[in-house]
């Protein structure tokens, strides 16, 4: 048998120790989990960083489960959901505390925006069918009929009880529920001890902490160039939501018909190409993005002044851009 002198054993240890100790970036790198799942009609991506892989995996799994629970509660496509019950109701209806909280937040944005955000546009949405297989341009009479009962006061909330002004009103929480689900996912991650994470639900983003020791870089989709970004924002501990006329649309005779409707006319809103809102919560950012899109580049920033901590980056219909003062120094144009 070959016997190595003892010091040779120690010498053999040396390269191992050098490699393990000399690469702090690798040996001390935190665990990272990046998972995607299709929920709420979009791809949900959750990224989380932490000291250990397994607890992170568990937390991310719980966050997805929470989002699936919110979807079951607020989708119009499942007959047992709060929203489906509410649309079918012909009188006051008690909903879950969470649905009530989302409706309360939506009503607040609706009131502050003079009705630019309206959760009673389900019939209008069905009429245009922009997200469906047979999108079409409705006639004036059809539009008028679809708007009956909508507008200020179409939904009233007392505690957990919701009353529709018109029993035919179809409730649509599409402009706010996804944001709420993102907020809940972040809350679940936080409760599990995660300190650095991002939840991205098809562009509705909420950030927990930074991306390690630096802020997250959020790319903002260019509204007219599919593969380009308009700008990047460096952010942490906040929510970012973009609404644009390029997401779901069809064109007829050179006119673009998209899914963000002006509740007053029933037509796609025409003052903006895209609106990005930075807000403390994704639910609020979600609703404000729609409202500001409808209000346009002049009235939109005025609305944001009424919501502390909320900022906006607006691309107007003519391609010009407006940013609110709170984003100064955070935007890098591309």
């Amino acid at each position, binding site marked *: *048998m070959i016997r*190595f002198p*003892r010091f040779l*054993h120690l010498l*053999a*240890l040396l*390269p*191992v120790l050098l*490699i*393990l100790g000399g*690469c702090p970036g*690798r040996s001390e790198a935190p665990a990272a989990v990046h998972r995607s799942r299709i929920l709420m009609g979009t791809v949900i*991506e959750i*990224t989380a960083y932490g000291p250990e892989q397994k607890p992170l995996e568990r937390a991310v799994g719980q966050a997805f489960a929470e989002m699936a629970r919110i979807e079951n509660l607020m989708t119009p496509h499942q007959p047992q959901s709060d929203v489906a019950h509410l649309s079918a109701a012909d009188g006051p209806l008690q909903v879950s505390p969470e649905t009530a909280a989302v409706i309360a937040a939506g009503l607040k944005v609706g009131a502050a925006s003079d009705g630019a955000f309206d959760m009673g546009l389900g019939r209008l949405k069905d009429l245009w069918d922009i997200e469906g297989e047979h999108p079409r341009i409705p006639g004036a009479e059809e539009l008028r009929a679809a708007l009956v009962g909508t507008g200020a006061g179409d939904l009233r909330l007392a505690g957990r009880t919701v009353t529709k002004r018109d029993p035919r009103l179809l409730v649509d929480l599409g402009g706010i529920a996804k944001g709420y689900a993102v907020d809940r996912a972040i809350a679940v991650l936080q409760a599990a001890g995660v300190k650095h994470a*991002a939840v*991205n639900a*098809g*562009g*509705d*983003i909420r950030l927990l902490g930074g*991306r390690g020791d630096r802020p*997250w*870089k*959020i*790319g*903002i*989709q260019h509204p007219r160039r599919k593969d380009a*970004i308009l700008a*990047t924002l460096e952010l942490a501990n906040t929510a*970012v*939501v*973009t609404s*644009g006329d*390029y*997401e779901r649309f069809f064109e007829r005779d050179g006119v673009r018909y998209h899914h963000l409707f002006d509740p007053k006319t029933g037509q796609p809103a025409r003052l903006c190409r895209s609106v*990005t809102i930075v807000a403390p919560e994704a639910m609020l950012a979600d609703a404000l993005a729609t409202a500001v899109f409808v209000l346009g580049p002049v009235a939109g920033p005025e609305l944001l002044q009424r919501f502390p901590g909320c900022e906006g980056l607006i691309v107007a219909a003519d391609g010009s851009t407006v940013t609110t003062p709170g984003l100064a120094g955070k935007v890098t144009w*591309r």
Partner: protein
Amino acid sequence: MALKGAWRRTRPLDRLLVALLLILCGVLLVWLRPGPPGSRVVVEREGTVIFTAPLDVERTVELAGRLGPTRLAIRQGSVCILDSPCPRKICIGMGSITRTGELLACVPNGLLVRIDGGPGVQPSEPAYDLLSR
């Protein structure tokens, strides 16, 4: 059998040494893993750059080597050698490369093909982490 016998004759410190060497191999495998996707192909002959092009523009080029022309194809972000005057065609058999730092070499024809991040490109720093749309 001989290996089994040799292993039985080792002492704990010998086994520790073997274990550490295995760990070392594992660490090196991770450390030397392929880089991020590249953006440019660079071809050198005898230490001089004779051709460079972006990886996202498809093309086929002929480059003069010691023995004759080597035909190179850039397709779908990768580069491969299609034809070469070298006798054993090993360079053709090396397939495609796509990632920063990867190499194709035709020793007889004196050509070295490598993938670069390109000027100004920081592969480890993407333009953004998440896209809001």
